[in-house]
């Protein structure tokens, strides 16, 4: 396939067309922060962390959903981008109830790591402290909406990879919630196969196994793409 020329952060590259800016940058080892992206799943551009500047376009574009084009001039590290990444991260923390010190995910959390990355030292927005449910009804797993950032990785992995479509999204704005089946307790789901893929896909301490306590959590989000690739091989 013919490669196309692009300029990323003032350097010229020849890259595959039909790929997203994010895919291209990952291959070139150019760092782009992401949260809703998980390799192997359809990208939806929900979290707005992967924003890049493209010359000639005034608004910032999400790298995970924008395809490269010939002669594109892309910038990934501008002050403007950093400012928005910082705002987005702060809003994640202000939106629900994150108490890392007592969280099962502490030390192994993608959101926490993002906080370190953007050098989060305070949150300028008022915390909303919503009353969120902890769904403990599943025999093996817990769904704690307090720690959910609405990346919908669980929704997509359940639908696209497991094919069960237990998870979905309900409401809008601050009321938005992940739901099981038609907003019934997870333990009563008629679609969930208890495969645990959502647990591995979830970047935070929102979905976790009942059998463990803080310090024992091992998530393997890379497993999702491995499964997807192996299935392709069989076909």
């Amino acid at each position, binding site marked *: 396939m013919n490669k196309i020329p692009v300029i990323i952060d003032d350097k010229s590259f020849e890259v595959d067309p039909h790929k997203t800016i994010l895919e291209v940058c990952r291959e070139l080892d150019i760092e782009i922060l992401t949260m809703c992206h998980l390799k192997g799943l359809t990208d939806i551009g929900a979290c707005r962390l992967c924003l890049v500047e493209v010359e000639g376009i005034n608004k910032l574009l999400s790298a995970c959903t924008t395809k490269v084009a010939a002669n594109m001039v892309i910038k990934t590290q501008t002050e403007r981008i950093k400012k928005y990444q910082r705002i987005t991260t702060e809003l994640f923390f202000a939106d629900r109830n994150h108490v890392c*010190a007592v969280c*099962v995910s502490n030390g192994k959390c993608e959101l926490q790591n993002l906080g370190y990355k953007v050098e989060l030292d305070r949150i300028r927005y008022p915390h909303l402290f919503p009353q969120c449910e*902890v769904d403990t009804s599943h025999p093996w797993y817990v769904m704690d909406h307090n720690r959910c950032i609405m990346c919908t990785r669980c929704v997509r992995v359940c639908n696209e990879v497991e094919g069960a479509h237990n998870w979905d999204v309900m409401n809008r704005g601050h009321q938005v919630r992940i739901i099981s089946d038609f907003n019934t307790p997870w*333990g009563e789901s008629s679609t969930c196969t208890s495969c645990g893929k959502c647990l591995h896909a979830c970047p935070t301490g929102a979905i976790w196994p009942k059998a463990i*306590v803080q310090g024992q959590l091992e998530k393997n989000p890379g497993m999702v793409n491995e499964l997807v690739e192996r299935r392709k091989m069989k076909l």
Partner: protein
Amino acid sequence: MDKRKIFISPVTRIEGHANITIELDDNGNVSDALFHVNEFRGFEKFCEGRMYTEMPTITPRICGICPTSHTLASVKACEMIQGIQPTYTANLLRRLMHIGQNLSSHALSFFHLSSPDFLLGYDSDPAKRNILGIAEKFPDIAVRGIRLRKFGQELSERITGKKIHIMGIVPGGMAYPLTEENRKALLEWIPEAIETVQLGINIIKKFHEDNPEMVASFANSPTLYLGTVGPGGEHELYDGKLRFMDGDGIILQDQLDPAKYLDFIAERSVNWSYLKYPYYKPYGFDKGFYRVGPLARLNVCSRMKTPLAQEEFEKFKHMSGGKPVHGTFYYHYTRLIEALSDVEDAERILNDPEVTSLHIQHHGRWNYAEGIGSSEAPRGTLFHHYKTDETGKLLKVNLLIATGQNNPSMNRSVLEVAKQYVKGDDIKEGMLNRVESTIRCYDPCLSCSTHALGQMPMVIEVRDRKGELVKRVERN
């Protein structure tokens, strides 16, 4: 005489201060004293709705000094819910961590917070009456005190990788094994630690000898005592049954299952403190208050488990002809006897061939809706009580902490001081220091009492029979 009500308005409570109200009768004589505990942080309430398995992570945050005791009480409650027992090795490692915490806490209490009073004198310059003052005049003692605390912290660090706010103690056992390298490194501390504790014992005994009147005058009235003992009545911190003793040394109840604590302990809320008032149920609220902690543990137990501590224990028992010792001042001495036993016991455990075994965790899942766990925190017996629904979600949490159980006695001790030092609006010189050292004896886990430098911040209010403020003294 009709009892009037006192309302302590929120503004008079100062976070991080010891807040005390002294009540006068019509003749201006002290009739009561209340030590207010402000640091209630709503733990019981906000744990409801969470998974019971999160409690071992959440509850150690209650206190920075005794996190291990909270975790232990918590994992025991979880194990009761799961219906499982920890492995033999896990029990050894938990004991080591518990010893580590007890040692650091006792070292902090004695060497950092209290030894300045004993070595420099109660009347010495308050600016210097702290661990830095000790470092100036008795550098060896200061360094030893700091190192003893370090040994305690290393016990938990070398097992779980963290000094405080431990991870690693999990329902069913432990998350990490002890390596041979760490076992050896810990053993090397033993001789020095024993020497340091013995040095502390000499300091406190000399103080007893030099100041017999002062020591004797410290709140000295009998109370009941509660502590954990082993199957033979021996001193126990980690796992055992409970023993209640009365002020004359009569064992009221023995080998009580901590899981049945509600059969013998009742709690009453009072309107002037955030802590609940526990009392020994058979004796009722007025007569049933009891003390916990090192003094109580040494009063109730029949013997120590290790030789050097046993030797010292016999001397302690001899002081009162085998009867319980009531003097609040002896908390310090008993803390050190415990520390000695801690170090000896650590040595025994570290030499157990099973201590480095990899069989450290049993696995379980929710089986029962209720779990109760207890352990001996440095300050006394601690109970965690959880009730869950059938998915493991917490419906109700009750935490009975050591400082809460000592609170009624702390009030009484403060009252005894107040009677000596207060008449009407006249507060005698030295009252504040005296109240401070009384509170220190109990080593309560409140922010006011853990100010390592300078004096304990304090607010004392004297109120007349109608509740009108007669005098207010504040020390920052």
